[in-house]
């Protein structure tokens, strides 16, 4: 008998825990509220099913437990019942899948006016690159990486010269502007994950992946790495700050471009030419 009781308690306990416990997702800071809604739908449907199945079990165990002289009912199958249950399940699944796919199609279609921001991951830190005045990011590649050029930006690409390079520092983004995060890694798999934004995507050395979102509130958010990338994985954190337009402008002003960063070493070259004769 205990078991029937415990089954009921499992359902009640789970529901109470879900409803009352303080552990819940962190407040959203992006346009992906739809994802949360899909999650809620799924919670309702699956929750209902879980409760129904387990409570029914509990009832059966209590009602049909062995007593002297009990004989089980003999019923090999019941086609109609099984078909009904199958159809119901099908409906339940569709009710979750359809909204899901609808939101996914939004997730994978990047709006035309999204500004591009590049995230470069390496063991175990985050760097960033923003397009300069020309609004274009220069080409890049791991084979170009060197102490002078840690992000592997192509020095011969004119588009690259004015790119703003933020090495191992915080990223700032303007509020309410859709951004397309271009994700690049120079060593192993990483994953750019900000819980408040809901979105995440792996970064693969040798190719550029992406996701898009629109920040919807200012603040400081922690970046975590969500793909095992070696010993430092758990400590590979970073900061993204969502600014108002003006704060963002001032921050951007303080940053230096790829050209500026690589000049000192050109100066060095010049001096040598002077010294030689």
């Amino acid at each position: 008998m205990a078991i029937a009781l415990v089954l009921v308690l499992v359902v009640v306990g789970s529901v109470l825990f879900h409803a009352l416990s303080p552990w819940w997702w962190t407040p959203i800071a992006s346009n992906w509220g739809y994802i949360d809604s899909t999650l809620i739908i799924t919670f309702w449907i699956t929750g209902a099913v879980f409760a129904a199945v387990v409570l029914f079990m509990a009832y059966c165990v209590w009602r049909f437990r062995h007593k002297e002289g009990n004989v089980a009912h003999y019923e090999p199958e019941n086609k109609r019942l099984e078909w009904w249950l199958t159809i119901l399940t099908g409906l339940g699944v569709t009710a979750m899948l359809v909204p899901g796919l609808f939101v996914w199609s939004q997730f994978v279609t990047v709006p035309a006016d999204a500004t591009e921001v590049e995230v470069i991951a390496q063991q175990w830190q985050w760097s960033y690159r923003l397009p300069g005045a020309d609004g274009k990011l220069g080409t890049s590649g791991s084979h170009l990486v060197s102490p002078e050029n840690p992000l592997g930006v192509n020095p011969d690409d004119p588009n690259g010269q004015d790119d703003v390079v933020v090495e191992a520092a915080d990223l700032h983004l303007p509020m309410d502007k859709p951004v397309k995060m271009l994700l690049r890694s120079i060593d192993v798999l990483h994953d750019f994950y900000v819980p408040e934004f809901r979105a995440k995507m792996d970064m693969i050395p040798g190719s550029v992946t992406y996701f898009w979102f629109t920040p919807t509130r200012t603040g400081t958010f922690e970046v975590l790495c969500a793909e095992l990338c070696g010993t430092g994985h758990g400590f590979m954190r970073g900061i993204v700050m969502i600014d108002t337009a003006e704060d963002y402008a001032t921050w951007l002003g303080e940053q230096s471009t790829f050209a500026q960063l690589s000049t000192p070493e050109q100066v060095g070259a010049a001096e040598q030419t002077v010294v030689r004769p």
Partner: protein
Amino acid sequence: MVDVTPGAVDVIPPAEVPEVELYHPHSWWTKYVFSQDAKVIAIQYSGTAIAIGMVALVLSWLMRLQLGFPGTFDFITPEAYYQFITMHGMIMVIYLLTALFLGGFGNYLIPLMVGARDMVFPYVNMLSYWIYLLAVLVLVASFFAPGGPTGAGWTLYPPQAILGGTPGGQQAGIILMLVSLILFIIGFTMGGLNYVVTVLQGRARGMTLMRMPLTVWGIFTATVMALLAFPALFVASVMMLFDRVLGTSFFMPALVEMGEQLSYGGGSPILFQHLFWFFGHPEVYIVALPAFGIVSDLISTHARKNIFGYRMMVWAIVGIGALSFIVWAHHMYVSGMHPYFGFFFATTTLIIAVPTAIKVYNWVLTLWRGDIHLTIPMLFALAFIVTFVNGGLTGLFLGNVVVDVPLSDTMFVVAHFHMVMGVAPILVIFGAIYHWYPKITGRMLNEALGQFHFWVTFVGAYAIFFPMHYVGLVGVPRRYPEIGEPAFITAPVENLNAFITVAALVVGFAQLVFLFNLIWSIWNGREAGGNPWRATTLEWQTSETPPPHGNFGKELPIVYRWAYDYSVPGAKEDFIAQNDPGTGRPATGLA
């Protein structure tokens, strides 16, 4: 009713194996060590699997101690932590569950349940075990290798897996792991051939496919899947070995490790992920289907009622087996593969819920209007349904591609697969051991210890993994030795983690009680007799218990009915053995 007259029955000569002599082992060695008796091999498989399983269990305690009380145990460095989770995961999935379900239960139950004297290729079957043992030893060796075992995560994703930034990546760890996997696959294939062909060829006269117990169906289908899925892991492992040892670039793109350019170039990490998950997803059903089958028989036997919708159950098993080969990329939704794959794989993934649902319904409906004996196997079966439904439903979150985006690689995933794989099938294993132990040893397991073991394991395991979903929902990523107090954590998770850890330790120690029970009852258990559960299937009808080499006496049984004739109206008992001609003459063994 298509009834065959007793006369017609008797003219059929019992299928006879020519030299039953073959089944009398000649020396102690060939009887207990290099035995070709499937039952002995089964015990060897199970013993080894449980032993290595205990190692993985201890590793899980260490992991939990770190997560529950970060910083308290300074011998658990991040390196050590990653080595623990990797070994824990790999051992549990492959060397414990796969080996125990197929090598252990498969070997013991298939020949007995289909009415065969032994597996069809006993010698190959024996080799299978010894190669498995070798694989386990190689795996264990990596703990003692310089640099320790690999810490690449059980998914072994390159490039990370074979680079210096990962424990064991540039030392022996990863190599030993890959070699061990390759050995395991070779060994398993040898065993797998036996399980499949025995079901195809070894069935007793009258044992048509649709008369087989669902246990056999589950193990059979799982084995077929394993035979077709493990090659993917084999290919992936071989190619990774090439990359690591010979310096090829199958999976390795051009990359800069710690500031220095490596000689690799052009390879595709995603290619590895496709190969791995093409094995990996079927694998999770390979450890689920045998549980499905076994639990069906437990419920039916202990509820004294035929399994509800037997045909649907069979079709569902086969359907799930087939479908699970076209859902693998649901593990790669955020891997950066082409986003349009998401639509296809989300759909196929959620479709799998339907046949699985049918199985769940039929288990529950078997209870309906049954005569439920709350024996320990029955208790474990009930607990399985609860945990499996719970874990399966959270699978639907992850399967629905866009919902997976925030949850992927968080503790929510960890909670999902523990509930559905780390708890549910393990509970079935326990139930199955309590159920068949009397046949294996001739004695019952101790009831009181069993009750204790059941309650602690069921309630405890649920208490471990249900809250863990919410740790993931808060946003804590998996494979983090410690999360700290980042701003996004609104309600502190330390106390929740600490609670989970305590629960895990309690449950873990309850397993020791179970192991004690296993040993103690061999000599002190209550005498069981041939058929203590009054079950219909053939293994309970053997003339001797434990069954001798060759299983059945001089004559192989003839099968007259399906495996679920419980509480048949008008029958004089509430069960009719499969080999009972139904002519009043009692079946062998019951006399």
